[in-house]
C-alpha cells in the first residue's frame, strides 16, 4: 500500500517568552493509505500538536513531513490552504460550526472555497449529509441539532470535498458515551468505504475501534501497535440519533 503520511524527526517547540516548551520531540511515523489510526496519550503529550501538523494547519520547528510524497515544508500558504480544502478533512472536538448558518451551508463552505458551481455543490452537500444520516436536517441550524448531530454535520463538512485523509481531534470529547458510539460507528463505516482516518482520543474505548494505536508521551512516540478493531455491535440506524 502507498504511504500517505511520512513524518521524519518532527519537532515542535513553542516559545513563551524565554521558556521553550517542546510539544513534539523527534517524531517518526508513517501512515498508509486506508489505515485507521488512533493517537493516544495523556493530556499535554502533544496529540493536538501532531494532528495540526498532519493537517497542514501548523508547521514543525524541524523535521520533514511528506504528504503523498510531497514535501509540505516547501509549500506556499495558498498551496497549504488548497491541501486543507481538497485533500484533508478535519473534525474538531468543539465541532466549529457557524452558529447562524444551517447544516447545508456549513457543509457547503469548503466547496465554496474550492470554487465549485452551485449545482455541483448542491449535489455534493446532499450526498455528504446523506452519508452521515442527516439528509432531513439540512435546513437546521446548529442550535436546533443535538451534540451528536452537530458532530455529524462537522464530519459531513470534512468529507464533502472527497479528501484522501480524515483527521479528528477528540471528536467524541464533547459527547456523551451513547452518542460517541454513534460517531465511532460512522467512522467505522467511512473507513470500510476506503477513507484513511487518523483520530486523537484519550479514551481506550474509542481507540479500540481503530486498527492501530500510536501512543505519545512527552512529545515522543512511546508505542505503536496494530490491533484487531472492536466490531460495532450491529449496524445501527445512525439517522435516528
Amino acid at each position, binding site marked *: 500500500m502507498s504511504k500517505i503520511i511520512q513524518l521524519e524527526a518532527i519537532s515542535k517547540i513553542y516559545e513563551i517568552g524565554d521558556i521553550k516548551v517542546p510539544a513534539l520531540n523527534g517524531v517518526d511515523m508513517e501512515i498508509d493509505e486506508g489505515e485507521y489510526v488512533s493517537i493516544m496519550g495523556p493530556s499535554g503529550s502533544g496529540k493536538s500538536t501532531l494532528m495540526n501538523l498532519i493537517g497542514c*494547519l501548523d508547521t514543525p520547528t524541524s523535521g520533514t513531513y511528506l504528504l503523498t510524497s510531497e514535501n509540505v515544508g516547501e509549500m506556499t500558504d495558498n498551496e497549504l490552504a488548497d491541501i486543507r480544502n481538497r485533500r484533508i478533512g478535519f473534525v474538531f472536538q468543539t465541532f466549529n460550526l457557524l452558529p*447562524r448558518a444551517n447544516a447545508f451551508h456549513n457543509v457547503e463552505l469548503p466547496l465554496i472555497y474550492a470554487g465549485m458551481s452551485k449545482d455541483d455543490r448542491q449535489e455534493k452537500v446532499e450526498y455528504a449529509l446523506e452519508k452521515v444520516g442527516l439528509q432531513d436536517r439540512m435546513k437546521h441550524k446548529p442550535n436546533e441539532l443535538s451534540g451528536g448531530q452537530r458532530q455529524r454535520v462537522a464530519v459531513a463538512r470534512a468529507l464533502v470535498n472527497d479528501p484522501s485523509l480524515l483527521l479528528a481531534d477528540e471528536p467524541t470529547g464533547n459527547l456523551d458515551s451513547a452518542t460517541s458510539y454513534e460517531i465511532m460507528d460512522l467512522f467505522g463505516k467511512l473507513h470500510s468505504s476506503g477513507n484513511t482516518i487518523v483520530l486523537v482520543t484519550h479514551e481506550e474505548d474509542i481507540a479500540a475501534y481503530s486498527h492501530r494505536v500510536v501512543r505519545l508521551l512527552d512529545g515522543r512516540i512511546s508505542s505503536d501497535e496494530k490491533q484487531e478493531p472492536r466490531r460495532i455491535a450491529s449496524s445501527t440506524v445512525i439517522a435516528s440519533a
Partner: protein
Amino acid sequence: MGRKIRGAGRALWEGLIIANNALMANKTRASLTTLGIVIGVVTVTLMMMIIQGLNKSFQDQISFLGAKTVYVQRWPWVWDDDWWKYINRPRVTMDQYEQLRERIVGAEEISPMAWTGRSATYRDKTLDRVSILGTQQQHAIVGSTLPEYGRYITDIDDRSARRVAVIGVDVRDRLFGPLDPIGRNIRIASKVYTVVGILEEQGNFFGDSRDNIIIIPIETLFTDFGRVGRDVMIAVKGRDDVAVEDLVDEIRAIMRGTRNLKPLDEDNFAINRQEALSDLYDTLTGGIYAAGLIIGGISLLVGGIGIMNIMLVSVTERTWEIGMRKAIGARTTHILWQFLVEAMMICMLGGTVGILLAFAGGQLLKQAMPAVLPLWLAGAAVLFSAVVGLLFGMFPAAKAARMDPIQALRAQ
C-alpha cells in the same frame, strides 16, 4: 482561467452573504458605525447640491448679458488694480459710439446705454428709485429687451428727444396695478413721459429685480438729466459667425484709434463680457468648494476611522471563525475579501442613507436657496463610500487574513 474567474465570483458572492449576515447580527452597531459616513456624505452632498444650485442660478442670472455680447466701458467689471487708475480715464462718449458703429464689421447690432436713477410717479403713487436706461431702438435686440405689448422706443423718438417710456413689469405693477398703462403719463423726476410699451419680464440679477426699470430714448435722457460727465456704455452684439475674441480685437483696435492711443499706451477703456463674471464667480466658489471638500473629507476620515475600529472589533470577535474558515481551506484572499466586503457594505449603507438624508435636506433647502441633486452625485457618493470602506477596511481585513489558523482557533 474561466474557472478561476467563476471561482472569484463565487467567493465575492459568499463574501456578500457573510457580510450581510454579520451586519444583520449587529444591526445597532452597524448603524452607529455608519453615522460618521452618513454625516460625511450628507455634508459633501449638500455642499455639492448648493454649489451646483448656485452655478445654475448664476448662469441663469448672467445669461441676459448674452454670450455673444460685449460691453465697452470706462471700468472693467472685475479688477484687481487700484481704482484711481480707472477714475482718471476719459469717458466713453456718444461720439465714440457713433464711430464704432460706423466702422465695426463683426457686429450684428450695437447700441449705446446711459443710466440714471430717478423717482417715478403716477398720480399719487411714487417709486423712489427706478433705474432709467437711455438707449436706442436696436437695444431691443442687443439687450434682449423686447416689449411684451405696446411698442419700443424708436429712432424718431431719439432724434426728437421725445418723452416716451417703456416700463418694466415691476414699475407697471406698482404704479398702475390692474390699469393698462399704455398712453398714460408718468413723471420721471419732474418730467412728464408717456408710457408706450411694457417690457417682457426680465428676472433677477443677484437679488435685484431687473424689472424695476424704465427705458427712454438716450437723447431724451441727456436732455432731461444731463449730458456732461455721463458715462456711456456701448453694447455690441457679435455676429453668429464671428468669434467673441475676434469681435473684442476689432472693437479694441477701433476704440484705440478713436481715443487717440499710441501703440505703446495701455488701453484706457474696458471691453467687458459675461465670461469675466464667470471667472470671478469661479474664484469665489473655489473657496466654497475647498471648504466643502475639507469638511466632507474630515467627516469621511472620522467615519472611516470608525469603520476601521468596528472592523477590528469584528475581526477580534470572529477570530475563531477566521481560524475555522482557514482550517477548511479558505485562502488568505478569501478572508481578506470577506472583511473588505463587509466594510464596504457598511460604508455603502451609510452612503445610501446619507444620500437619502441629503436629498431630503436638499428639498428643504430649495425653499431658501437654489439646490440641484444630479444623479451622478448620488452614484458618486455611494461609490465613494465604498472606496472609504475599502481603504479603512484594508488594515482590519489584512489583520484577519494574516492570522495563524491554529492561534485563531484557540480564541474560542
